[in-house]
């Protein structure tokens, strides 16, 4: 009963939206909005074939590499800056400036500097995704409990051991919030970098479809992007549940008091 109910909650709204869409398109055909059944057949025809390997997979690879690199770099830099007061004072205003730059404006510059290749696209994704991770890591490291610090010191937990056993776990809730932002930024930048200069990828293909008035195909590409976003979100939640189990439990206890 309980699972039925939760499945109902999960599928309720999508079913209503589909029904509405179906009703709205069942009258006279609109060139720009395909019917649900047309979109499904187009979706299968367009993406379950060669395009999966030539466009979808390369896009996902760029996204994954870019986001992972941004997370690793962001956390490493964030630790260094967060643990060093001087470094923090020097870098923080600069970071705020770079963070304020919309990463798409970097695409033409990176095209010149890195060249038109996968490296450029990954660089664009990193340049946008690193900021939330970096700034959240700094914040997480900075707001560490002084009693935890004294505990580590009195038990001789210093240097890398302290980072590993105390600082990283303690900053994880804040870092994860940054990673979540980075994922959505990453998806946007993946598409944008492929729209500018590319010969493969989802962004490139969708723009091709638009320019050749292949409207159902274009819509089906947008659906692919949506599905990738949903998949990313599920993966993120799955990881978060495991990594932050202690944190959610702790919060529940604190809220109950």
């Amino acid at each position, binding site marked *: 009963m309980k699972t039925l109910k939760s499945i109902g909650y999960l599928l309720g709204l999508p079913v209503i939206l589909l029904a509405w869409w179906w009703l709205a398109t069942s009258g006279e055909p609109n060139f720009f909005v395909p019917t649900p059944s047309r979109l499904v057949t187009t979706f299968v025809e367009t993406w379950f074939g060669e395009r999966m390997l030539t466009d979808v997979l390369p896009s996902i690879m760029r996204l994954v590499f870019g986001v992972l690199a941004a997370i690793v770099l962001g956390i490493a830099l964030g630790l260094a800056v967060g643990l060093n007061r001087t470094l923090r004072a020097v870098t923080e205003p600069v970071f705020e400036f770079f963070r304020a730059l919309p990463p798409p404006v970097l695409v033409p510059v990176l095209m010149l500097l890195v060249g038109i290749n996968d490296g450029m696209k990954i660089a664009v994704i990193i340049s946008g995704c690193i900021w939330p991770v970096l700034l959240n890591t700094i914040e997480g490291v900075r707001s560490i*409990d002084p*009693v*935890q610090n*004294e*505990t580590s*010191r*009195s*038990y*001789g*937990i210093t240097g890398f*051991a302290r980072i590993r*056993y*105390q600082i990283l*776990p*303690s900053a*994880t809730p804040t870092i994860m919030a940054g990673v979540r932002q980075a994922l959505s930024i990453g998806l946007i930048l993946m598409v944008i970098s492929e729209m500018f200069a590319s010969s493969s990828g989802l962004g490139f293909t969708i723009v091709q479809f638009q320019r050749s008035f292949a409207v159902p195909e274009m819509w089906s590409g947008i659906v692919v992007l949506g599905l990738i976003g949903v998949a990313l979100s599920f993966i993120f939640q799955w990881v978060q549940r495991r990594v932050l189990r*202690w*944190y959610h*439990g*702790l919060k529940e*206890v*604190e809220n109950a008091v």
Partner: protein
Amino acid sequence: MLSNNPTSHAGGRTLPEGQALLSVRNLKKVYHTDAGDIEAVRNLTFDLGRGELVCLVGPSGSGKTTLLKCIAGLLGSTSGEVLLDGQKVTGPPKKMAVVFQEYGRSLFPWLRVAENVELPLKNAGVPKEERKRLVAEALEAVGLAHVPKSYPWQLSGGMQQRVAIARAVAYQPEVLLMDEPFAAVDAQTRADLEDLIRSVWKKLGVTVLFVTHDIDESIYLGERVIILSSSPTIVQEDIVIDLPAERDQLETRSLPRFTELRHHVYAEIQKAKQGHRPEGAITMVAK
């Protein structure tokens, strides 16, 4: 009446050279703040012999926590020194463990109970088998052998402080420093934890320095009580607690001797609050 007076020293008791495990010598701590200097500890001298259980009691704001942090090597002193086994303390020594008042913040919430106890040992490179044994023994000693897989925040306050005590015990320190460890737990739990400290102390033969603002607690627990003056802090008096070694929450606390000692310590602290300074201490300051 005179025979009822406890054996006491004005100023802290010191031991002949080589006999003390922990020595505090002319310790002074001044905090430099934007609003000016604050003298938290003026001049403290006392010794702890090996295996002693000593309570430090003083009015609130008497620099008890400052003193403890200086001894633990967490805070540098302005002048004077702390010696552990003849070695000057400059950072947190390997042979010391600290139990903090804020157990909820001192235990790592992302680690389970057993992992919290194990972490300092793991960090010190103790082999796995040995670690397992020490953790099990420590949890057994504090009566928490049944919850190794729980998270600290799933436990009550008293149990959390037990975990912190187990972590300190498993670390096998020679000196156990406790900074008002029971100030935040309820009275019932507090009584249990006091008895726990006595039993751990007896079983392990560890030297304990227990800081508290609670006069009754200091007398009930200690073999010796060091009374601090109000800030700027010196040792007001250092008295021997001549109560039977077997302590019992009801029996001991209703002994006439307990009441006498309680009166004595209370009177000393009142004097301290009014600014009375023992003569021995004054000459020490002058020196």
